[in-house]
Each structure stands twice: as structure tokens, then as C-alpha cells.
């Protein structure tokens, strides 16, 4: 049985990668509010223009909150090697991102880490994919 994990808030270097999307995030999300979410996947929407991940996150007070995390487009995720079936319901995920400005349980995702250690850039990146081969 796993134990409730405690994460010490401290200096953490957030995963940084080029994030370029078809819309601006700054009106909706807050660059001063990075967040790391850990929990079980309840739903993955492999949809355009941006995919969405929903995870149940248990807060330190025991309350479970379902978070919605905006991801890159399905084609961007696909070209990074991700597939829709990489996201079965119940997967344990660790997601980094930025919180929405309005305080809702919504974030703009930048990375996703799977229980097997695989780590992918999650954001909307149209620049890296565009690198000519």
C-alpha cells in the first residue's frame, strides 16, 4: 500500500520547454502560479484544438478535486510519440503546468510523467515539431 506522499514545497525547477500555441495562454493562465498535480486519470479528451486531461487530485486535507489540464493538440502529442491509448483511465500521472487565473481547478499543462517513468512535453508546441528534418 502506498503512503500518502508529502511533497515539500521548495525550490523546484519547473520543466521548461518551448511552448507555442495557436492561442495566447496569458489571459487565462497565470505564469506566476506553476503547479504540480499528482493523481489518477479520470478522462483523456484527445480532441482539437487542444487535448484535455482530467485527474483526481487528493489535497492535503483529504478532499479529492478533479483537475482539468489543457494539453497540446492531438497531432502535436502524436508526433512526440504519444498515443490516445497511452492514457487509460486510472493511470497515475504527475503533471506540471500553470494554474488558471480565475482560481478554477484548471491548468495549462507543460509536462506529464507516467508511473513507468516516461516523461513527455505536454504543452502546445508548434515550433519543435516544425523543425525541418
Amino acid at each position, binding site marked *: 500500500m502506498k503512503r500518502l506522499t508529502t511533497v515539500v*514545497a521548495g525550490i523546484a525547477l519547473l520543466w521548461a520547454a518551448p511552448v507555442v*500555441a*495557436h492561442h495566447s495562454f*496569458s489571459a487565462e493562465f497565470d505564469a506566476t502560479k506553476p503547479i504540480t498535480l499528482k*493523481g489518477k486519470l479520470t478522462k483523456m479528451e484527445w480532441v482539437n*484544438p487542444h487535448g484535455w486531461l482530467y485527474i483526481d487530485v487528493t489535497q492535503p486535507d483529504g478532499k479529492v478535486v478533479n483537475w482539468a489540464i489543457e494539453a497540446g493538440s492531438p497531432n502535436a502529442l502524436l508526433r512526440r510519440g504519444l498515443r490516445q491509448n497511452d492514457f487509460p483511465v486510472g493511470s497515475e500521472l504527475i503533471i506540471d503546468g500553470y494554474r488558471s487565473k480565475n482560481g478554477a481547478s484548471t491548468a495549462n499543462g*507543460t509536462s506529464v510523467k507516467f508511473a513507468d517513468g516516461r516523461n513527455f512535453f505536454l504543452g502546445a508546441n508548434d515550433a519543435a515539431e516544425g*523543425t525541418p528534418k
Partner: protein
Amino acid sequence: MPRVRALTATVLLLAASVVCASAQAPATGTAAGCPLEPMKFHACALPKMKAFSPPRTPDGRPDLNGYWERAFTSQDIEEHGDGLGVQAGPSLVIDTPDRKIPYHPAALELKKTMAAQFISPLAACYPPGVPRHGLAPASHQILQTPGYIVHLLEFSHAYRIIPTAGGPHVPSSVRLWQGDARGRWDGNTLVVDVTNSNGLTWYDNAGNFHSDALHVVERFTLVDADTIHYEARIEDPKVYTRPWTLVSAFRRNKEPGYELLEQACYEGNRAVEGAEGAGLKPYEGVTGMLGGAR
């Protein structure tokens, strides 16, 4: 219900000061041996374009066929630093003294709050318009036939069909997201004259805008077999004090088996919900905000 066991879920709010996404520039490296900074690229590419003898189609035109990736994105076509979801990048404007868009004073005031007031047209999955079609996300493909250039964009399945035999524009009463394009060949350069904009598109996510009086003259020229120099001269007297020019580039995507994928942009687009939740309104042009300009 079992008590919180197994659990694991921990919300970690990092009290970090502003963390910007990246220090990387969006365009790295070179294209055709020229630096990827628009003004430097332009200066460097011009003599190469004149000297280059491009591969040709069976009807003798420079062969632009293939998959292409833009060298610069449309986050902000003026010089900008890193931000949330934005990488630092240079100005694409090459011919104004400060390399900024020469807005009229009232238009400049409007621009300052544009992106904070309105939902970016591209976020709502609308066609990008011109010249943003050449700067918008994901891969590009050019298909060339005698008499037509078809410029496909993966994003939102946007496309342009550009007749290369010239001809008159459609009547001014016709207003189009992508404008009305009339192409012609000027030596090795495809020149495209674009009018009839509906005034509802932006150049980028930063709210840089035009009105329905937009007139764009685009120039596509091969610098070498794998690089297109792209130039757009822009006029819009309702919004700018003078014509201005932006320069970008396309680099050939040579990945074997590469293809454009379906990107049905509007699948319950939650980005719009989010933008609305943040108080942004649908963009309906600049009518009423700029003394009658749409």
C-alpha cells in the same frame, strides 16, 4: 470507502516567482546559410535569391512543391520576450525605423489592450487570414499545378487556392477570411496580391491587427532548394500610418513519409470557454473602435 490510502495525490503550489517557459528562441539555426533573424535573413537571402536557379515544374515555373515549416511563429510578430506559452522572438517587421508596426495613435492604443479584450480568432479555429496563413501553427504543404498554387496548412485545415494567371479581384462587396488572392510570376518569384479581407483576423496571438481595408502583396521566392523567402508588404490606411513589410521563411520538411494530418480544429474547443471565462469577448473587427474601420 477506504480512507485515503494509496493515495498520492498532492497538490504542490510552488511559490515561485515568475517562471517563464523558455529561453529558447523559436527559430534556431540558419536557413540557406542565412541567420534566422528576419532583417538579417532578408539581407542575406536577397543576393542568393537572385543567383539561385530553382528547380522547375514541367511548365517551367519555380517548383515550390513540398512540405514546409515556418521559421517564425505567430505568437507576436513584433519583438517580444518569453512569457507563458510564448518564446522570445524577433520582430518580423523589416522596414520601419523601430521595427514596430506603424499604427495610427488610436490604433496603437487599441492594440495595447486587444489581446486582453478579445478571443484570438485563431483560438476560435477561424482561418488565419493573410499573411498569418504563412505563420500559423503546424506544417504547411504547397501543391503546384499549372495555373494554381494550393497552400495547405495543417491547422484548422486552412487552405489557399491562388490562381497564378492574375485576373481581377472579386467585387469589393465580397469579404473573405483568407482574402481574395491573385498570383503572378515575377521571374522566379510568386507574387500574390490579396484584398477583400473581412477584417476579422489578426497577425498573431498578441492582438496585432488590421481592418477590412487590408491589402497585402506577398512574395514567395526560393533561396535554395530547401528555403523559401517569404515577404508580405502590408497596407491598411485605416490602421497604419504607412505601408510596412514583414519577412519570414519556410524551411523544407524532408522527413521521409511525412504528411499532413487531420486537424478538425473545433472539437468542442474548450480554449474558447476558458477565454470567455477569463472575460474575453469574440472579436468582431475594429468597427466602432477605430472610427468606422472594421
